[in-house]
């Protein structure tokens, strides 16, 4: 997917309802439930063995940049918004974008020596995405509270979330993705339906990379 440079101020695309997004092609990325066999807890494997989770079947992905900042807009269907995290069984809705930090880092949360960078947005803290590093399933660790600025909108049974970040940042390249014009970047996606008690490995995810090339 090629992303043309727009001559627009970042404020114009930070809002998921901004007009500018209606002119950007949306890629429909298919999602599947995270495999039960890959859960790193026997309890989870046992209780959720019927696979009654990860039912969000696709996420619409739009990307744009203005030469300084890159924005990714995700939109997906979620029949009920779950914003709370107060009661013991409250789980907020969430979405994440995963970027490999090495050439062969696997899409399944990375591997030892093959880290991935994960931007995790959640409805209970909607203004920033946490930056996580992971080197395998169950290893994600938050390294940056403000990996990306996020704005979200829940309307007519659908979430829309825009993640915004500078193309390149000072953080060492080993810790976060850097976007260079003309260079393809791979990404993958995950969505959690909090109303179904989805958290951790209970999620829908995209089993294939989406390759995105910001162009000058």
């Amino acid at each position, binding site marked *: 997917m090629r992303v043309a440079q727009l001559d627009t101020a970042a404020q114009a695309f930070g809002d998921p309802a901004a007009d500018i997004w209606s002119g950007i092609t949306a890629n429909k990325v298919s999602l599947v439930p995270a495999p039960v066999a890959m*859960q790193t807890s026997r309890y989870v494997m046992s209780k959720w063995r019927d696979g009654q989770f990860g039912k969000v079947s696709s996420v619409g992905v739009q990307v744009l940049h203005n030469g300084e900042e890159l924005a990714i807009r995700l939109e997906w269907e979620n029949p009920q918004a779950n914003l709370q995290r107060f*009661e013991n*069984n409250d789980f907020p809705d969430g979405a994440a974008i995963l970027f490999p930090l090495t050439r062969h880092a696997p899409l399944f949360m990375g591997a030892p020596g093959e880290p991935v960078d994960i931007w995790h947005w959640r409805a209970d803290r909607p203004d920033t995405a946490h930056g996580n590093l992971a080197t395998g399933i169950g290893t994600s660790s938050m390294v940056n509270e403000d990996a990306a600025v996020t704005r979200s909108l829940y309307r007519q049974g659908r979430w829309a979330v825009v993640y915004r970040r500078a193309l390149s940042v000072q953080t060492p390249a080993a810790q976060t993705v850097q976007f260079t014009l003309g260079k393809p970047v791979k990404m993958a996606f995950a969505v959690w339906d909090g109303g179904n008690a989805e*958290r951790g490995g209970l999620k829908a995810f995209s089993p294939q990379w989406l390759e995105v090339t910001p162009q000058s």
Partner: protein
Amino acid sequence: MNKVEIGREIDGVVRKPKRQLAMVFDLNKCLGCHTCSIACKQQWTREEGQENMWWTVVNTLPGRGTPRDWEDMGGGFDAQGRQLPSLIPTREDFGDDFEFNKEEVFNGGKGVQNYLQPKNSRGEKPSWSPNWDEDQGGGEYPNSHFFYFPRLCNHCTHPACLEACPRNAIYKREEDGVVLVNENHCKGYRFCMEACPYKRIYYNHVRDISQKCIFCLPRIEKGVAPACARQCPGRMRFVGYLDDKDGPIHKLVNEWQVALPLHEEYGTQPNVYYVPPMSPPSIGPDGKVEHSKPRIPLEYLESLFGPRVKEALATIEREKARKRNGEESELMDALIVYKWPDDIFPDFVADPANL
């Protein structure tokens, strides 16, 4: 040790830590005063997000417990060692953080028209709290009965919480078997709260992590007994290493076998043991004392502590009789705790005031 090995029998050997700290509670000495709960609360759970946490709590039995009806919630392991599904108790199940209309009643001039009434964190009239059914118990007059029952994390040899955590954020210490949540690693998924059959794990919604009894680890490491045990006015909380042949824990659990685990059938091998309560005899329909029938039904105690209750109670009665007859009884001396704190937590006698 890999988390799916801890506490499991592999090649005929149960994989467990080098040593295991344990507690024995003598239910015949529990006053139901809640000093343990308050001591723990003061020490560990006064931060925002911990308002409704009681890492240790005292319930009245027979009763519904904390959280409400926790024994019907599932969790733990089946006989084949498979994890059993369960649910997450709600704040209301645990007993919520109450707010009272103190201002209105005490200072608002409405003390005559209105009365003091609590509201839960949803602003509703509460339906439960840790001691909602305190002193109610069971049985019909004149055979009504109850006993007090302190509960806390069992620091299990085969912890269901630890095995359920997909992030390896729960670990069991090799040197003393204490089970801890690594708060830096925990992401608040709460699978531990589901898997724990004893329901002794709480959710801190402010920090988005799970929290529970830490066996007063910072105290233990300085030779000071856990706050709940040190402060217990009834001196009924014994603390020590299970393998310490000279200590009270080993004597009560392994030698005399009068201290029994709670719900052993949950399969987690808990390390808190209970000396079951003795009870006075029943009164028959004709008003006569029935010496062979204890007031607290044996079946009820067996439902908690298993089939060994009868023998444990018989041992206690036998030793009690010896003492009454002026004979020596090592068991009675141990339960009475003549020398405090040396006889009740011999490895943790340091005075916290001197820290």
